[in-house]
């Protein structure tokens, strides 16, 4: 079943924020609103750190930055 590209991008975003910005979201959080808020707040941290426009949304510039080859160490946290 073709994955909705939106889901693909959402997976990329969540994985990136989890790996490099310590995003804490239970995989199947019952509180969808809570999860969306956590992603948005962590996304703002990433956009601020990497000099992007801080929107809390994953726009083209943000997902393009997430696809850039990079170092595996976290940007924030251990």
């Amino acid at each position, binding site marked *: 079943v073709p994955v909705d590209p939106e889901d693909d991008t959402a997976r990329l975003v969540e994985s990136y924020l989890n790996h490099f910005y310590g995003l804490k979201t239970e995989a199947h959080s019952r509180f969808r609103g809570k999860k969306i808020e956590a992603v948005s707040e962590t996304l703002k941290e990433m956009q601020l*750190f*990497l*000099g992007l426009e801080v929107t809390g949304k994953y726009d083209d510039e943000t997902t393009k*930055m997430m696809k850039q*080859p*990079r*170092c595996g*160490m976290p*940007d924030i946290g*251990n």
Partner: protein
Amino acid sequence: YVLTEGHPKWSTNDLTYRIINRTPDMRPADVDEAIKQAFEVWSNVTPLTFRRIEDGEADIMISFQYRDHGDNSPFDGPNGILAHAFQPGLRIGGDVHFDEEETWTKDSRGYSLFNVAAHELGHSLGLSHSTDPGALMFPTYTYVDPKEFHLHQDDINGIQAIYGPSLKPVQPTGHSTPEACNPNLSFDAVATLRGEMLFFKDRFFWRKHPQRMDNGFNIISDFWPTLSSGIQAAYENVEKDQVVVFKESKYWVLNGFDIAYGYPKRIHQLGFPRTVKRINAVFSDENTRKTYFFVNDKYWRYDENTQSMDKGYPRKIIKDFGITGKVDAVFQHEDYIYFFRGTNQYQFDPKTKRVVRILRSNSWFTC
């Protein structure tokens, strides 16, 4: 810059390193040289020394690894994550792991082992990622020719905050990242490109779209790895949809973001006398298909149709444009020509042949 949480550092300044295995992508000697140069980036600006050992446990163990390699940080195959390193400490502390599924090279193809190793060793010594996009410790990969590499001032400040200054009599300094809204900003070159404006400075350029709020900051080598830094003049040939960029006595033609085959060429092939060593600024008038080259206090005019210099040149800039001295950069926008010199920008009206306004050089940016 950011120091790693807890500010870990080595208790001695004289460290050892060992190369456990090597990528088959490069000659062993090239791997060793890239790693050695990466250590020198840091020993040049601190009291640290690095000695390579062949056996036993070194402070910094360097290896090439695949996927899940037992440190709870698996690699992800080609591209994506290139490498990682651990903060100063015993056993895995200080160690550097490269993802063997990348293509490692000693030049701009694939990923430059030197560039990635220099970054990872910053972690091995106690630095975390920097938010300065021009710094070596910025998280994303950027190619810089090892021969032209200079450690950024932000990185120097960071590592010296941990280990103190170099023991050299003269303290090494680095470049700083230019800021779009710094009123003292001047440019190396400016050009239009498909409705956007490119402003070049050192290793960086801004891609300014008139309708967008952000200033579009970029690193030149992210787009053109072999151009790396110091573009001195640039213009858009609208009809051919090309940008021509000049550095010293060479020039490149860019088709969008691809460097055309067979470049660089020498500027003398355009018809300049041997006495001309570099171009200061250039723009092309898309109405007349004439391109104007500015060199010191003179300028030449080139006919894009006949691909040759017009007769009767060079002429004095002051006589025809009312601008004294050397021009840093110039471009044409709508009916005006904008000359950049230092922090000033002169809006010239070719119809009245007069400067109609003087602006700050960075007036095009959203500040």
